[in-house]
Structures are given as structure tokens and as C-alpha cells.
């Protein structure tokens, strides 16, 4: 039973980590363009043509 004392906090911590990751992804516009994201993995530029392009200007 003492196992519970660290297993439960460990499970909760991992769960919270996942939640935080999702909320961060949501906040940084990663769910704004699901079709585009699916296609972008196929771009094979040697050096990303516009690595400085971030979400500084985001389509509304």
C-alpha cells in the first residue's frame, strides 16, 4: 500500500505534464491550421526558407 504514496503522485504528475503540453500547443496556434500542418511535414527544403517565420503574424 505504501507504493500508492508515490505511484499516485507520479501518475498525476505525468497526466498534468500532458495537459500542460496540450494547453501550450493550443495557446501557440498549433490547432489553427490542421490541414496545413499535415502537409508541412512533406516539405523538404534543405534549409527552411523562412526559419524566422513564426506565429508573429498569424492569420485570423
Amino acid at each position, binding site marked *: *500500500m505504501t507504493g*500508492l504514496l508515490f505511484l*499516485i503522485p507520479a*501518475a*498525476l504528475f505525468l*497526466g*498534468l505534464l*500532458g*495537459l500542460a503540453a*496540450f*494547453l501550450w500547443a*493550443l495557446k501557440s496556434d498549433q*490547432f*489553427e*491550421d*490542421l*490541414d*496545413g500542418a*499535415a*502537409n*508541412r511535414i*512533406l*516539405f523538404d*527544403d534543405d534549409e527552411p*526558407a*523562412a526559419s*524566422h*517565420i*513564426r*506565429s*508573429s*503574424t*498569424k*492569420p*485570423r
Partner: protein
Amino acid sequence: MMPDAAHPLSTPYPDREQPAVYPTPFVARAADGTASLILLVNGIHCGGCVQRIERTLAQTPGVVSARVNMTTKRLAIRWQEQAIDADTIVSALAKLGYPAVPFNVEPALRIDSGERALMRALAVAGFAAANVMLLSVAVWSGAFGNMGPATRNLLQWISALIVLPAAAYAVRPFLNSALAGLKRGEMSMDLPISLAVLLTLGMSLFEAIRGGPHVYFDAAASLLFFLLVGRVLDRQARSRAAAAAENLLVLRGSTATVIDADGQLRPVRVESLETGMTILVTAGGRIPADGIVTMGQSDIDTSLVTGETVPQAVRPGAKVFAGTLNRTGPLTVRIIAAGEGTLLSEIVRLMEAAGQSRARMVRLADRAARIYAPVVHLAAFSTFILWWAVLGTAWQQSLLIAVSVLIITCPCALGLAVPVVQVVASGRLMRRGILLKASDGLERLAIIDTVVFDKTGTLSLGRLQLANSPAVGRGDLALAASMAVASRHPLCQSLVAAMPGTFTLPDVREYPGEGLSAPSAEGELRLGSRAWCGLDDGERQSDDAAGPEIWLARPGRAPVQFLFSDELRPDAKETIDAFKKRGLAVELLSGDRAAVVSATARAVGIDIWRSTCRPADKTARLGELAAQGHKVLMVGDGLNDAPALAAAYVSISPASAADISQASADLVFQGERLGAVVEAWRVAKTARALMMQNFAFTALYNALAVPFAVAGLVTPLLAAIAMSTSSLVVIGNAMRLARGIGWRSP
């Protein structure tokens, strides 16, 4: 996604020219010398398009950043102002094959879907549900084994620590909407949901303090999770439709060219036009405000406003209306009404008046909630009275049983019954190029008994074709077509289409609003109106002529007449037949002349028709039908149909329709086939049947589960299994629509 050129939302305006819009008025400037702009690029179909646009722009000097959102087809771009300007960027895009227009929907007009808040609530609820389930499984299995009450209580308290804050956060969408409903004096579906969650939490806390077994924290969390999944799906489908609708809104001519007092041309936004300004409207441009022509001659295409297919010739002094299309020559127009004062806004007012009556309709889910909520709350209350007053149980125990009645009646399945079907159905329609705009459009579409069509642009394509080609000699046609090549007039273009591969006659001059002339060995050749070809001017085109005409005059020969008719949609007759075969009444209401309307009605097999209807006549007829108890589907496209579209029980318009008509229609379909209307109707009927099945299942489930709950036999495990199963059954039933089961082919 594969590069699918057939994506239904890729070309909202398949057969309409894009207006020339100057981007400069829409540029936003930042303090650091950069400027930014959001462009709508409708040609984006696949990842390749995205890559080409982004790479090209990234290599353009002066461009700081460019990023495409493929879902909404919008491009956000930022550049150094001293290095490059907006016009250069837009023309570079056009050269690449991607014409772009500034995305300028006012923030007030934009629809905030609140999708993110729902997603956050969903994430929190999901986290809580998953983690608490871990603990609950332990408690359930411990109940059969050797778990001591102390351990069980510890696990319950940990569950409480997780669920209470999470539920307080995730229940807000439901609680807010339930409270808003109560303020209006209505019982919405959210009320039983909120009550069930709050009572579950309250009772579980009470039991945890008491150390009792009836702790349902897991049930509360998974109830919220399931319901939020339904909400998010529903909202996503709607925000996709909203984005498409916004894109349509942007495509209307959003800039105008003003001629200043000193003769300078200056592009301005349409919203900032004022009475008294003089504007230049190029050939092919849309007229942005009501006005009087001061210079120039042209032909005005009023088909979107009046439903009339034949262009109207205008000369200085003629009145022109906002929304009409200038076809052949440049015009200078003095504005006499802009914004609020235009014909357009009058139509909008008529529409708003019509739309108000519709707001009183009650949605299916809310109708179910009105029956469900009182029954369930009454059942729970009588359970409490039964146990406490009649059977003499302690009040805590009685309350517990009463609350378990509330929980097990499962507002979850009921809350999912409609949204899940809705999402699946709108996905299915979207793949067929039909956009569901109103969220309750399907429910209304399913129970129509009358269909009213508009003529121009709805039954017909609004495109003219040569009607009397056998009567006209081939040589005459070839000669006429070789002159017509020089003109943008729609009749001339149809003439050319009737004679493909024609040669071009040299030195053809166009006199906008009158006709064409060309020199030849025999003398002057003329192509144009009766009057232009020197025919008797007193005998104007009589009212019983079946359609527009054009004449060819040659010296020393009899003039030749070319007659035109409006081309019907390829499956117009099949569509009407399909409705009639299923017992629906079909009517035709048109603003066009009687002779034309009756010919069209005969051709497609409609018995009841009315001609020369003004917008108010159309709404009046719909009002008559509604007063007789008919549920009317209106199919129309013109500005003159917009009030009727808003007044009808449910409405559909083609994607080639006027913006305002699309805005007031519940559904919008793409492409030339009118069969989409029948398709939408069939999907709606199936969707409604599935919704009804879901309600029936929920009722059956309740009939079985409630007696157990009233008898006090519900254990936490039983509650969890029963509730999840009922939700899954409802979702599974809705999915049948996606896979096409229960679907009768035409």
C-alpha cells in the same frame, strides 16, 4: 491531404470573376517600419500551393514573413515598408497563379466561435476523467476484494482533489448557457446537464466526508468529457462554415476608385464612400453604391438584383444600383446613396424583418429538453419524498437515492443525440459541396412539404445560349460571331460560344449600350439591338418575346435575328421530378417577364408559377404559404431573393449567388447541379430519423434504468457502465450516416 482540386470550399465563386481590389487601404503599419496584411488566397488547394507561395515570398526582398493557413486559405504577410509595397506583393502572387484579395472582414462582423475555450475545458475534463478513472477502477475492484475503508476513503479524497477544480472549470460552458437560458425563462438542455454535474459533485463530496460508498467523481468527470467532445465537434463544424462564409464576404468588391475634384484617382474602401462622391467603375467591375451615370455608356448586368438576364443599356443620367455588374464600358458615377441608403440596405431591412419570425422556432434538442427536464426533476423529487416521508428512511439516504436518479437518467446521451448526428451529417454534406450554415438547418429541411424556386441563377445558370441556331444560316452566324469576339457583352459572348473557332473581323468598334459596327466591302456591318440595326424603333421589344435578341444588319440584305434563352441547369427537370414524386409541392417565383417564366416552368414541369415578382411579392407569397401551414424550402440566388430566403422556413442558395443571399440562406451548394438540393434534403431526412432514434433510445434507456435508481439499487460501477454505454450507442448510431447505412439511394 492529397492535392484534391475538388475540395468543395476551394472555389466559393466558381463562375464569377474576382473583383479588382487594391490592397493598400487594408495594410496595417507597425512602429518598426514593417507593414502587414492578411490576404485571402482562394486558389490554395494542397501543400504544394502552400510551399510555392511561402517560398516565393520568403525569397522576395523586403518580405519579413509569410505564412499560409491552409484551412482558412488566408495568408499573413509582413514586410519592410521602404523595400516593397502591397501592390507588388499581390501582383507577384497573381503572377504565380494565386490571385489574392485583402481579408478585411471587420472585427465586429467576425464570428468568434469560442472554440479555444471549449478545447481547454475539454482538455481539463479529459485529464480529470482519465486520472480519476485509474483510481476508480481500483475502488471498484477493491470492493470485491480486500480494500479497507480507510484506503477507499483516501482514493476518494484524491479523486475529489482532482475533479472538483477540474469540473469547476469545465462545467462553465454548460452552466453559463443554462443560466442565460433561465434568464430568458427557457429550460435548455444545459440545465439538466449542469444540475446533474453539480448534484453529483455535491453528493460525492458529502459521501466522501461521511466515508460512504456513493462517490461519483469519476461519473461527473466523464459526463463532462463526453459532452464537451460533442460540443467541440459541433463548434468545429460551425467555425469551418463560418470561415467559409467570411471568405465569401471578403470577395465582394471591397474597394472603389474615387475621382477627386482635381481629377486624381484614389482607391478607397467601399464603407467610406459618401453621397456626392464621383467614382470610376471599370468594365467588369461591380458598382459599389447607388448612383447616377455622369459619363460613359455601358451595359449593366442586373441579374443579381432583379433576376433579369438581359443586360440593361445605360447612358449618362441613368440610375445604377449597388451590387450590379458593369459589363462593357467604363462609367463615371455620382453617388446618390451609399451605405444605409442603398437599395441593398433596403433589402437587408426587409430581410431582418423576415428573419425575426424565424427566431421563434424551437430546436429539436430544446423541445426534448422541455419534456425531459421537468419529468426527470419531478421523478427525482418524488423519489426523495417516497423514501423519506413514506418509507421513513433517513433524509441523507433518501437524498442520495434521489440524486442517483438524476445522474442515471443520463443527460449525456440526450445532450449528444442531436450534435453528433449534426456533425456527421454536415461532414457528409461538406464532401458533396454543400455547406450547412445554420446549425438547425437540417432539422428544418427534413420536414418541408413545399419547394419554391427562383428562376434566374437557380433553375437556370443565368447564362444565355443561342436558341434559334437552326433558323439562322451558318454563314450569318459565323459573320456575327466574328464581330462578337470583340465584345464582352454577355449576348455577344454567347454568340461566340455558339460558333467555336470563329475568325476575328478586323476594325470592330463597340458602342457600349448600342452595339458593334465593322467596315466591309459592301458597307458598314452592324450587330446589336433592334434600334442599332435600323429596325422600326417604335416597335420596341414586345413583352411576349420569349427572350433577349440581337440583330445583324448588312447593307442590301434582310436583317437576321438571333434569339437567346437562359440555359437551364443540367438536372433541373430531374430535381423537380424528384421532389414531385415524393409528394412535395413545387412553385416558381421569378422577377422576370411572364413569357420567359412560363416557358421555363413548362420546360422543367412546374405547374404553379408567378412572374414579375418584386422582393416584397416573394415574401408575401411565402407568408401566404406559411399561413396555410406549409413548411417551405426556398431556393434562390439573387439579391431580390434575399428577403424570401430569410422568410422561408428553410432556404438554400447556390454558391454563385449574391453575398447577401448566401448570408441569409441556411445552406449553400457548389457547382452546376441542382441535384444538390435533393441530396441535402435526403441527408436532412436521414439525420432527423437518426436524431429521433437517438431520442427513442435515450427514452428506452431511461425507462429501464430509472426504476433501478428509484429502488436505490444503483452502485457507482453500474452507473458508470450504464452511462458510458448509452453515450457510445448514441454516437455509434450517428456514425451510420457517415458510412451510409440506413441510406436509400435515389
